[in-house]
């Protein structure tokens, strides 16, 4: 990992691209995260991506993220081609990544000119670009030529404007008061009606009519405000259209109006079951931009709390999973266990689900006196309970019959759709960022990556259950080896800043005052850090323009990718299989819609 400023050697893949397409086709950009970043002309992007996916050895099989940046107000663009808008493609080659940490990342950027620019779609290369391009169109107004169905995805069909554009206000107070009259309500509802023709679906064949069943946005098994329209032949699913956006609250836009520090609580609510785990990629990106090195104690505390949240999230998954296949009781036991974990979390952080407890450069406080007793009680209590559930839930023959070989996909398909986390590992690929590219000190821990082989609903549960045991193992190691030392970095941009010297000289006092009132000014640059979150790989791609606020906050969440895959997996299955599959994805809509 090269720090900014130092001239890193040209990465292997960049050299390969230079050789294939000529050095003049690309502009290299140095970013703070050291990820190879290349600017490509919009006419060549499809060709380059196709080459990367099929033409190189150890190909880039996964389109990890696709997003855009409104560049029109950005001041610090040194060395970058002129652009009004930029579309960013982030690719991931798991093969390369497993060979060398961070070796599988590649970021491609396309510069676009004009108010509502357009560029060719890449859905012909990566199928999962579909939703990402719709999202970019929805939020930026950038048109993707040749996209199969370019319509709004996050916002309601009748929404006016594209909110991530800089001219769109971030606060509701800047608009006229919202009025919902009868006419508007009728029109809005009319617009939400599902019309099969818009999705290229037939209403029936010569012999029979299909039933279009609107599952959600309020349905007990939809796990939040998620709507999926099913085209049914009897109870068999012919096709389906997931409809998301009901939980969209503009988290990325909020990132552009909150100070770096005051945005932390918003990150907690992205994957609202992940708690402080969400803080981590955000803060790691900021720390990368600011050049802060986090002390070992803070890192170990972060790991410990993150693993606690992995356990609580997986416990909730486990319970609702059993519930969705019809078992009524397990969820109650697992909520009891979750409560035990939350007791520890609450004692350490002061809150339960959304502690917003990590800080730029460390954590909010040191561990409280007696934390070790609480943690020890938990790690001794939990494994026994997991053993019980093995018999009570996981080995139940009805449950196995319901979930074995249901909604299975293999490693190739998983990568094609951008699936990460337990869903990917259930296909047999042992790709876990905590091992593949250890962050935050995970390299110091001894744990295993659980994998399974069938990639079906049942295996996804087995993997998660085993992950809980591994998390307990990690927590135990944190307990036994908690380093001494400060819980916050000694760095001027640490927030809240160290206060020891503030009352002794005026210069420190002024800095402190500004940083507390306005917030820290993070140096300009770009950085994206990924973590292995509860549901898959989560990352925050931050663009700083040298201000107290982020210029662009891109949140790449695993659940978004996982939901896009649903139709490809579930065709030909029955309605109860869909419910089991949805349960096994383990998504939360806040994570999908942001």
């Amino acid at each position, binding site marked *: 990992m090269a720090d900014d400023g130092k001239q890193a050697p040209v990465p292997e893949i960049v050299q390969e691209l230079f050789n294939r397409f000529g050095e003049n086709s690309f502009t290299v950009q140095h970013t703070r995260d050291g990820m190879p970043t290349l600017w490509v002309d919009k006419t060549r992007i499809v060709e380059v991506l196709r080459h990367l996916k099929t033409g190189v050895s150890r190909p880039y099989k996964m389109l990890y993220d696709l997003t855009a940046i409104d560049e029109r107000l950005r001041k610090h663009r040194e060395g970058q081609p002129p652009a009004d808008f930029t579309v960013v493609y982030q690719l991931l080659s798991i093969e390369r990544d497993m060979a060398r940490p961070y070796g599988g990342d590649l970021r491609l950027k396309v510069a676009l000119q004009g108010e509502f620019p357009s560029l060719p779609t890449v859905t012909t290369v990566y199928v999962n670009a579909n939703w990402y391009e719709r999202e970019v169109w929805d939020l930026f107004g950038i048109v993707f030529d040749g996209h199969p169905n370019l319509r709004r995805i996050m916002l309601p069909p009748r929404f006016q404007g594209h909110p991530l554009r800089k001219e769109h206000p971030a606060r509701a107070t800047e608009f006229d008061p919202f009025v919902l009259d009868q006419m508007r309500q009728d029109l809005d509802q009319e617009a939400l009606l599902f019309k099969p023709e818009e999705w290229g679906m037939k209403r029936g064949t010569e012999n029979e009519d299909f039933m279009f069943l609107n599952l959600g946005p309020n349905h*007990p098994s939809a796990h939040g405000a998620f709507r999926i329209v099913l085209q049914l032949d009897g109870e068999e699913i012919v096709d389906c259209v997931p409809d998301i956006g009901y939980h969209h609250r503009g988290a990325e836009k909020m990132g552009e109006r909150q100070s770096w520090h005051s945005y932390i609580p918003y990150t907690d609510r992205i994957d609202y079951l992940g708690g402080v785990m969400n803080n981590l990629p955000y803060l790691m990106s900021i720390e990368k931009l600011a050049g802060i090195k986090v002390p070992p104690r803070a890192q170990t505390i972060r790991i410990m709390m993150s693993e606690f949240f992995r356990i609580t999230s997986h416990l909730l998954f486990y319970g609702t999973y059993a519930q969705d296949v*019809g078992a009524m009781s397990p969820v109650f036991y697992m909520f009891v266990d979750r409560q035990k974990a939350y007791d520890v979390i609450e004692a350490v952080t002061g809150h339960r689900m959304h502690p917003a407890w990590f800080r730029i450069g460390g954590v909010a406080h040191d561990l409280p006196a007696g934390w070790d007793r609480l943690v020890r009680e938990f790690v001794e209590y939990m494994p026994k309970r997991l053993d019980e559930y093995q018999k009570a839930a996981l080995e139940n023959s009805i449950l196995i019959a319901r979930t074995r070989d249901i909604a299975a996909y293999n490693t190739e398909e998983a990568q094609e759709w951008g699936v990460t986390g337990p869903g990917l590992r259930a296909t047999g690929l042992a790709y876990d960022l905590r091992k593949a590219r250890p962050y935050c000190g995970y390299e110091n821990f001894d744990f295993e990556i659980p994998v399974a082989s069938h990639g079906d609903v049942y295996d996804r549960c087995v993997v998660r259950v085993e992950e809980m045991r591994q998390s307990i193992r990690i927590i135990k190691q944190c307990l036994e080896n908690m380093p001494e030392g400060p819980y916050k970095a000694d760095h001027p941009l640490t927030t809240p800043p160290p206060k020891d010297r503030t009352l002794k000289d005026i210069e420190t006092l002024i800095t402190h005052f500004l940083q507390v009132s306005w917030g820290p000014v993070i140096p300009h640059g770009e950085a994206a850090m990924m973590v292995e979150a509860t549901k898959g790989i989560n990352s925050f791609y931050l663009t700083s323009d040298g201000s107290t606020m982020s210029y662009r906050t891109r949140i790449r969440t695993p659940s978004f990718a996982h939901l896009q895959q649903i139709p490809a997996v579930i065709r030909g299955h*029955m309605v109860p299989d869909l419910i089991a599959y949805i349960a096994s994805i383990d998504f939360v809509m806040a994570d999908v819609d942001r």
Partner: protein
Amino acid sequence: MSAILDWFTAHPQFTAALIACVKAIVILLGLILTAAWMIWLERRLLGLWQDRYGPNRIGPFGLGQVIADMIKIFFKEDWLPPFVDKATFVIAPLIAMALMLLMFAVIPVAPGWGVADLNLGLLLMMAIAGLEVYAVMLGGWASNSKYALLGGLRVTAQTVSYEVFMGLSLMGVVMQAGSFNLRDIVEAQHGLWYIIPQFFGFCTFAIAGVAVVHRTPFDLPEAESELASGFHTEYSGMKFGMFFVGEYVGIVLVSALLVTLFFGGWRGPFIEAVPALAFVWFALKCLFFMSFFILLRAALPRPRYDQLMGFGWKVCLPLTLINLLGTAAVLLLSGPGA
């Protein structure tokens, strides 16, 4: 006073009819109260098995919860959704409740206590059980809602499949007792309860019973996690209440049938000395099965629709037939004609 008594003694037929009526009303009320009380029992037992309390605030042990719920449900608006087929929509829950109550008529709860003493009691019961499917089917259809329709479809397929062997599973008992009259069947279990010779019949009937009253794991018609509430999605207020209580009456009924047919009905120790104990035995045995059905709900997930049908046709039906043939063979060989 004595004149009235004299009149009754002078008209014995009328008196007998009156007593029968009173008994019937007592049994009917007792049944409905038991079904309502079962709601409390289920919630408390589930609470016990699920590490939580269940309703425990209103009255002693939360017993008043049922009354509170009943009052609430009676006073809810009697809402008819505008898109439903009105007449059918209203009739369906009535059928559900009425048929369940009607089936209980043939069950002897104690010696000489029962609504009807019919020689073809068991057949009548099976016939009514066959009609029971109409309640949910019509409810699902009349709701004019997709979820309700799917629930209605499921329930039809499920009930029809499981009724096939529900009747057959009892034929072993009928053969052994030599009667369709439930009182005779109880009498015939003197000395040996039919659970021993008719074990497979018991297993299949118990499964079919759960399936026909669609309780977990056979609750696919209402499968909350899949179909929201299945066939009664559009129902509310007392119309929903009738489906709801009807289900509990169904559980009481199936428990009572299991007890009557396989566990000696009201038979038990000391009934000669204290005749009132007969009912106590009957009630206790029923309570055991009612609790067992609740335990099933607490313990089991729900199979998929096709798995359920497969299980019915491929496992239960052959088992029933084998049991039937086996019983017939044993009776033939050991009977007077052999």
